[in-house]
């Protein structure tokens, strides 16, 4: 069992290793946002925010917040040099047109084929899809960054999503505090696991079949 306080950092740091220098990336709210602070040395990525900016910088110091430089979660942010702004149609043109190298999102469920459900729980929680459906449909790579199980301890990786799908486009990679799965045509393939855990424990925490990569290794921490 990996402690909850460690999980988020583990996930963010592992996701941060997925990028090439110069990648254009959209990070969802929550764990994905933490990825920006975990990039390996020498890797610079350009952050896209769907409300209309590219080259998003960190939250400015107190007193330096501009009321009209915000991210998609309504937080004050900043521009890095070389930043650009555009309207929502262009912003989603970048997304849908395949001009984002990657999008990192949270999930409610991911199934054994790699389908993602992350935008509603019928009759219970209906926040709306926002930009998630376009992001998952359009980005070159879709990376799910989530805790392996939900608050009740139930697996979030399931045989078939019971919740409404975000897209029929399959995700490319699933990163949890326990494991990293690559999504192939044949289904999920476990490629890395946490040295604090074991393949057996991961099988127990996962409600879907997965194959094991012959080059299986532990997650570098």
């Amino acid at each position: 069992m990996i402690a909850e306080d460690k999980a988020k950092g583990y996930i963010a740091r592992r996701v941060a290793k997925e990028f090439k220098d110069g990648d254009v990336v959209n990070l969802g709210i929550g764990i994905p946002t933490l990825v920006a602070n975990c990039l390996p040395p020498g890797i610079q990525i350009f952050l896209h925010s769907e409300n209309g900016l590219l080259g998003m910088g960190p939250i400015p110091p107190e007193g330096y917040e501009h009321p009209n430089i915000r991210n998609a979660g309504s937080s004050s942010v900043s521009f890095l040099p070389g930043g650009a702004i555009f309207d929502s149609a262009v912003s989603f043109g970048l997304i849908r047109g395949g001009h984002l190298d990657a999008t990192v999102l949270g999930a409610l469920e991911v199934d054994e084929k790699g389908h993602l459900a992350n935008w509603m729980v019928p009759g219970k929680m209906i926040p709306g899809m926002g930009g998630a459906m376009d992001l998952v449909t359009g980005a070159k790579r879709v990376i799910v960054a989530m805790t392996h199980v939900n608050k009740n301890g139930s697996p979030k990786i399931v045989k078939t999503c019971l919740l409404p799908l975000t897209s029929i486009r399959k995700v490319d990679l699933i990163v949890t505090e326990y494991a990293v799965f690559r999504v192939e045509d044949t289904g999920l393939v476990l490629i890395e696991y946490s040295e604090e855990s074991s393949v057996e424990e991961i099988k127990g925490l996962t409600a879907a079949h997965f194959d094991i990569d012959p080059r299986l290794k532990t997650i570098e921490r």
Partner: protein
Amino acid sequence: MKKKLITLHEFSERIPSGATLLIGGFLGDGTPDLLIDEILKTDKGGFTVIANDTAFPDQGIGKLISQKRVKKAIVSHIGTNPETQKQMIEGSLIVELIPQGTLAERIRAGGFGLGGILTPTGIGTIVENGKPKLHIDGKEYLVESAIKADFALLKAKKADFYGNLTFAYTARNFNTFMAFAANCTIAEIDELVPIGGLNPEEVVVPHAVVDCLIRGNRS
């Protein structure tokens, strides 16, 4: 030539109850707060609001929701506004959820004289229910119709007397293309500049689609 600058009172007199309103902004950033406050001074309601979101209960479009002036909201998400969710569950507010990129393009299509859009977003999800689909070059697309409205309520940064508009950073969002998609487009502006006070390359929305201007708090 018709003067485009009007007062807040003249503005609210033009908006009838039951009107369909495109309202700019993203979680309140780029939303014309003065225009919304002016509507709230009247007893008008029953609006259909088309916008990215309903912001927060005490902010921007959220105030129209909290004061029960909206009968239908066509938006991409409502996660930041529990009041919207409450009214939706109670059945007093109809909420139609649309993927954000689809919503943006459908409004642009309405303003640009296109019948709708052909998007891959939503294929294979509950968004496609009841909608026509088309195959083009072996790929499947949803046919989503164009959206137009009676009024577009925008927040701009600068305007000249003709109505050419610029926007403040991320306050641009839905304001640009909404300007084209309404019978009457009204912009709350932070700064009024003389004719010739904007570089032609700086203009983001040309005056041909702007009907009325209202000076905001800062102008």
